[in-house]
């Protein structure tokens, strides 16, 4: 159990960093919509249309690190299997 929690924590951190970097390593807050610029051919004006898109930010990274930290912390309080077996054998 201890090992599983630590593996999940490591995977969570690694997955969050890979996802964050793959999405453009946005150093701002998480975005759920992005501006798409369009140019009007007649007037030459640049308009903005908003498109729904999830772009993880530093808050996403922080939440993932916090989650991983919690899992790693919980793992410290989970007794290891080998120790338990040894106690049972002594009895």
């Amino acid at each position, binding site marked *: 159990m201890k090992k599983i929690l630590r593996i999940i924590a490591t995977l969570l951190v690694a997955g969050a960093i890979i996802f964050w970097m793959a999405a453009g390593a946005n150093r701002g*807050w998480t975005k759920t919509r992005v501006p798409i610029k369009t140019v*009007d051919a007649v*007037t030459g004006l640049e308009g903005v249309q908003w498109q729904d898109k999830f772009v993880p930010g530093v808050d996403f990274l922080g939440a993932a690190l916090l989650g991983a930290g919690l899992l790693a912390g919980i793992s410290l309080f989970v007794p290891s299997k080998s120790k338990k077996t040894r106690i049972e054998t002594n009895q």
Partner: protein
Amino acid sequence: MKTKLAILALIGVTGVVLAAPQTFDFKDPKGINNAGFKLDAPLEAINGNASGVSGTVTFDPANPGATKGKIIVATSSLMLPNPMQRTHMLSDKWLDATKNPEISFESKEFKNVQTAGDTTTADVTGTFTLKGVSKDLTVPVKLTYLKDKLGDRLPNQKGDLLVIRASFSIKRGDFNINPGQYEDKVADTIELTLSIAGASPK
């Protein structure tokens, strides 16, 4: 003699009609018209825009200095990429969009008017209203008059277009938007850009 007088009168009337100021409506059916805003604080940059532009401008191609009008931006149309930031911005703690549904600029006077071809540049003095606070500002603007171009933009319509571009800055503290507070995250200076086109159908 009567025919000559009639022709002269017709020419005169035509001249008056041609020189008459035109009213341009800035509610854009194509949704291109927008007002952008940018705040660059030491810890955070905020970039957004608003598409809810409306208003009318009276423009006379023969006398651009006499241009008058009012441009309105719906506060609720202000957009940011982060939904929580947008909720905060429109809340009663910042813009209070419910009580202040409009941001507007009403022109009073055009100065330093320079026209070259279809393009006029000028410094416009007018009243800028944000969060219920009105202040007089002088803003550099560029007007481009596009005669008979409405049909190119909106098929089945005939008329002229007037393109207005303006960039200027305001201080949020001047408009009672949390003056002197949170300036490390929300800059006091707001850079505004206006890119809009109005139509005058014939």
